[in-house]
Structure formats: structure tokens, C-alpha cells
């Protein structure tokens, strides 16, 4: 079976060693006015290059730029759009991370690239395929505050975000991206949320061309919603299998299902993962999957663990694949 190990998105921007503090120090100097925008950009470039190098060293087939330029999981995309201003800090689901709440003050317009330049930088520094990551339209809308009559509610706001993201997806495709991930933790809120996402996704899908579209559903148990998830019009769906404590295998779904990215390694703890157990779970889930390629990944991005743990976690993906390909688990 064609199994590819892939980054789930973020990677720790700094580490615990003194020589791993450069980006933190640069951001602090920038905030104090001691460093210009070009200097900060250089520090971000260096951090991205290091994140890519460490993912390659860990043996990943598909890497990201670690999202090292992102202020938080929401703002990097939302604040690049016209019509939005930064609001107060809010908690990002149950992660312990925080984000600036987008305040929608007027019509939302994509006037510049959101992540395409980040992608181009990473692609130029990696001999492996690079995945671009975008926050999804439902999650952006769900965490926003509307202070304009332009959007009467969640549905229209989600549609508008989807239109903006469709433009970015087209730009990414033109820049050479072949795999783009939409992060949609808000979709696991329930059937209504997933139904809304299902209604707006065609806007994005229509713009993707030959880009492979991966929908990531981190921070929750996808099992209860699997029949609905399986019908979404995406190429790949990334599932957080560490959030499914009782998962034996995915239940049957009507019709063809997307290919899978299995979040097998827990990216939210430093505890050791059970490689054999995770590989056995993957084997059971993949038994009902369509032809590949499929992806093996962490449960979510790795910025919630220290850098040393992140490297250790990534290396486990190769070990799980080796166990799967060894055939001892079938």
C-alpha cells in the first residue's frame, strides 16, 4: 500500500537550547523597534528552513514550513484579509493555545496572498513535496465576531471566507502546490457544522484544479460523524485517531470515501506512543480505505509539544509505516 509520512502542519518555532531562540529574540526585537521588517523576515526564513530540515531528517515524505510565520492558528489567514481587524485573545478550542479573535468590520476581500509566498519559500528549500496549510472557512467564521451588516450570520460569513480561500487555493496551484490542507477543527462541533462545511466546500473545490485537497479535522473524535465526513467532496480527509478511544475500524459509509491521512501519533503529549498498537489500528482502518496514496501523520500540528518531543514524534511515523509494511499486523 502507498503510505506517505506527512507533517500535520505546525512545528515548534523555537526549542529549549540557547541556539534555538533566534526567532523569539527577533520577534522581541521587532516589537521593541530594534529590528526592521526585513530582519524579522530573515529570522522567519531561517526558522522555516530549520523546520523543513528537521522534518526531512525525521524521514517525512511530505513537509510543511512549520507555519513558523503564523501569529496563531487563525490570524495568519484572517488578518491578511481586508475587512477584518484583530480582536481580543481567545482560547483555541481545548489546546491551551490562544488566538486573536477576528472582528469582521466590513466586506471581506482577499487583496493579497495569504500563504502562497510562504509556500514558495518552503518549496524552494525542500527536495520533498511541500504541503500548504490554510485555516478553513468554517473555523474562521465560527471564531469571528461580526460587527457589520454585510454578513447576517454564520452561513454567509462562512461562504465569504470560502470564496477568499478559493482565490488563495488557485494562487497556490499556480505557484506549484500539489497538496493543500484546510484545517477545520470547528467542523467536529456536530452535524450542523459539518453540513454547513459541506455546503461551502464546493466553492473551494471548484478552484483547486489538480491540487490535492486535504481536510484536517483535529482535536476531536471523528467517529460519530464519520458517515457525514465520508461524503465531503475532498481528496483526503485527515482524522485525529488519538481522539477516538474506542475506534476499532471506521464504520461503513455510503458511496466512495476520500483517501485518508491517519493522525496516529499524539501531538499533544510528551508521553510515549505505542507504535505497535498504532500500526495495528492503522491496518484495521486502512482495510476499508480506497486505493492510496494515504498519509500517516500526527494527530495535529506539533507546536503543542517541545521541539525535542516533536522530532521524536515525527520519527515514529516511519516506524509505524515499517510495522505496517512488514505485514506482521495484517
Amino acid at each position: 500500500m502507498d503510505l506517505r509520512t506527512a507533517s500535520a502542519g505546525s512545528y515548534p518555532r523555537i526549542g529549549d537550547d540557547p541556539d534555538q531562540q533566534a526567532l523569539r529574540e527577533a520577534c522581541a526585537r521587532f516589537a521593541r523597534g530594534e529590528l526592521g521588517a526585513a530582519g524579522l523576515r530573515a529570522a522567519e526564513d531561517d526558522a522555516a528552513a530549520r523546520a523543513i530540515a528537521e522534518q526531512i531528517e525525521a524521514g517525512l515524505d511530505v513537509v510543511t514550513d512549520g507555519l513558523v510565520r503564523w501569529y496563531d492558528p487563525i490570524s495568519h489567514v484572517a488578518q491578511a484579509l481586508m475587512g477584518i481587524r484583530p480582536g481580543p485573545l481567545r482560547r483555541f478550542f481545548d489546546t491551551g493555545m490562544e488566538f486573536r479573535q477576528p472582528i469582521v468590520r466590513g466586506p471581506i476581500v482577499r487583496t493579497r496572498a495569504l500563504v502562497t509566498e510562504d509556500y514558495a519559500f518552503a518549496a524552494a528549500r525542500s527536495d520533498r513535496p511541500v504541503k500548504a496549510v490554510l485555516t478553513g472557512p468554517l473555523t474562521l467564521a465560527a471564531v469571528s465576531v461580526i460587527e457589520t451588516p454585510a454578513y447576517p450570520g454564520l452561513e454567509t460569513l462562512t461562504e465569504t471566507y470560502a470564496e477568499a480561500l478559493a482565490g488563495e487555493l488557485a494562487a497556490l496551484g499556480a505557484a506549484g502546490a500539489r497538496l493543500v490542507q484546510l484545517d477545520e477543527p470547528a467542523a467536529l462541533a456536530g452535524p450542523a457544522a459539518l453540513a454547513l462545511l459541506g455546503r461551502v466546500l464546493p466553492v473551494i473545490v471548484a478552484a483547486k484544479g489538480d491540487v490535492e485537497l486535504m481536510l484536517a479535522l483535529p482535536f476531536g473524535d471523528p467517529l460519530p460523524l464519520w458517515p457525514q465526513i465520508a461524503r465531503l467532496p475532498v481528496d483526503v480527509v485527515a482524522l485525529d485517531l488519538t481522539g477516538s478511544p474506542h475506534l476499532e475500524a471506521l464504520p461503513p459509509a455510503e458511496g466512495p470515501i476520500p483517501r485518508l491521512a491517519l493522525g496516529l501519533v499524539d501531538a499533544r503529549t510528551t508521553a510515549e506512543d505505542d507504535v505497535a498498537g498504532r500500526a495495528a489500528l492503522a491496518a484495521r482502518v486502512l482495510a476499508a480505505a480506497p486505493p492510496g496514496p494515504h498519509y500517516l501523520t500526527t494527530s495535529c500540528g506539533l507546536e503543542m509539544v517541545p521541539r525535542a518531543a516533536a522530532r521524536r514524534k515525527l520519527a515514529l511515523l516511519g516506524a509505524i509505516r515499517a510495522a505496517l509494511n512488514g505485514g506482521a499486523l495484517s
Partner: protein
Amino acid sequence: MSRPTLAELGLHLPPLATAGVGGLPPLPGTVEAQRAHARGALSRDELAHELRRSAEHWVRVQEGLDLDILVEPATPGEDLVCRYADALAGFAPGGLIRIYGNCYRRKPVIAGPVTWRAPITVGAWQAVQALTLRPVKATLTGPYTLMAWSFIEHYDSRAAACLAIARALRDEIEALVAAGARIVQLDEPALAERIDELPLAVEALRQAVDGVRAYVAVHTCREAVADGGIPALALPVDNVDVALTRTGRDPVADVARIPPALHLSLGVVPAHGRDLPAAADVAQRLRAVTATRPPETLWVTPDCRLDRATPEGAEARLAVLVEAVRAVRGAAPPADAAGEDLVDA
């Protein structure tokens, strides 16, 4: 077990009692002193002297503003979790985790059985209380947050880790009460992170404070308690915070969701951000809420700790708070802040 009333604890607070949340910003000199001590250029005694100076400064500022309940200054670099993880048995140092932007936190590892070894906060609280006749609120991080913001490697479940921490914190709270603390606040900013774990958080609070002879508050840090269905679970404390500063929220509706038996700390002034609200606007928001509950059951506070503000900014926010409360109480400013009689001798 029934909880002692404020009067039974010898505390006679006015309606709409004013207070900080905790952790007032360290003075620039204190930050410098801490750095000098870290590089060996300042002795422990000299650092202690500077910390006393900071405490005295903030006590006088709070008395001068006529706050009813005082809080301690934060020590430079104070961390809501590591302060306890460093002192309790069972924790090991952890690595740096990003919270947002350029803000990082060291996330400790629960690597063994968690137990209390010795007082953690008692000495600092005593030092501040000794400077004033007004009650000083003792603040410490709650068990659920200490669990949620640590990596768990020793225990099989989050519940087991959380309840072990609760038992350890209970020893600390009892030490505070034995030292004279009558108001204890548990900071639980992680409380609203996982709705499915609210019963665990409530049970941990119960194990930490049930039967303790103190007035117990819980601070959830900006997130309205009403968001998470916490009221229905009957928090085993006396006082819970509600932020009235949140965009797009109806403060009266938020307050209405909380059982009337619980006293409220109304977070009326934003602790973060550049904007300083006008006292008249704050008073207007306060009036809307005071019409719905007895003012004797309401405290008025910032919506979070002020330790990320400058000392001047923190003082300005507390001043707005006090001015707004005076307007709502309809009382003129006191001619003299001295001669407090808020605490029974």
C-alpha cells in the same frame, strides 16, 4: 459542608467590594533586581529587600485607590503553573510551548506521584498582609489548570492527575488559612477549555476546598463562566468571576445563568489591550448587572490579572474601576483612605 460567611470570617465588606484579580505588575526595579540576582550580581537578601519594596508600593497604591480587598504583586517571570510545579513533588521541568505570537510558556511534566512538600505561597502572602489592615486575597493556580497545562506521563488518566494535584493544593490552602488567609482565590483559566471535563474540574475544586475555613473564589480568566454550563454543576466555592468586557456578549444574560447563591466577581475593566475604558461606561455596565442581584453579593474587579500591564497602566485600570464603583454606589470619594475597618481585629 456549609461554607463560612464573610461575616463569620470577620470580614465586613461594602456592597460592590472592589479588588484586583491578583498578580499586579512587578516594578521595573524589581525586574532588574531579579535579573541581577539570576546572574549572581545581587544577594538573596538584597532581592528580598526589593520584593518587599514592590509589595509595599502596591499595598500603598491599592490603599490609596481605596480598594476593599488587596492583592499581591507578581514576581518577575512568575508563571501560573511552574511556580507550583517547581515546588510540588512529582513534577519535572518541561520544555517551551508557544501560546500565541511570541508568548511562550514552560509546560512541566507530571512524572511521578504529586504531593505537597512545603508552603509555596504562604510566605509571600504573609509579607503583604503584614503591610495592611485590609484583607489580602491569597491567590493560587487551581488543580484543573495545573493538570491541563502540564504533560501527564505518570498517571493513566487526566482525572487521576487532576485529583492528585487537588489533594496537594488542599495542603497549601490549609497552610494559607493557618497563616491567617481568609480569602483564597483559585485561578482556573483552563476551566472552560473542555466542557466534557467540567465535572472533573468541579470535583477537583471540591476536594481542594471543601471544609476549608475561608471564603473561596475561583477566577476563570476572561472566559465567561456562563459559556460552559458551569453554573449547572454548582461550583463548590463562594465566588466566581464573570467578564463583562467581552465583545458581543450580553452581561446581564451571562450573569443570569449563574445561580444566585454564588457571589460574583464582575470583571468590568479589561486587563489587556491598549484601550482604557471611561469610568462612566464601566458604571453603566455595572448598573445593568446590579439591578439583577444584591450588591452585597457582587465584587468588582478587572477581567484578569494585570501582570502584563505596566505599573502605571495597571494603576490606571484600577482607578477606573474604583471610580465606576463610586458612581454606582452614589458615594463621594473618601476624604482619607486611612483608618480602614474592613477586617475584625
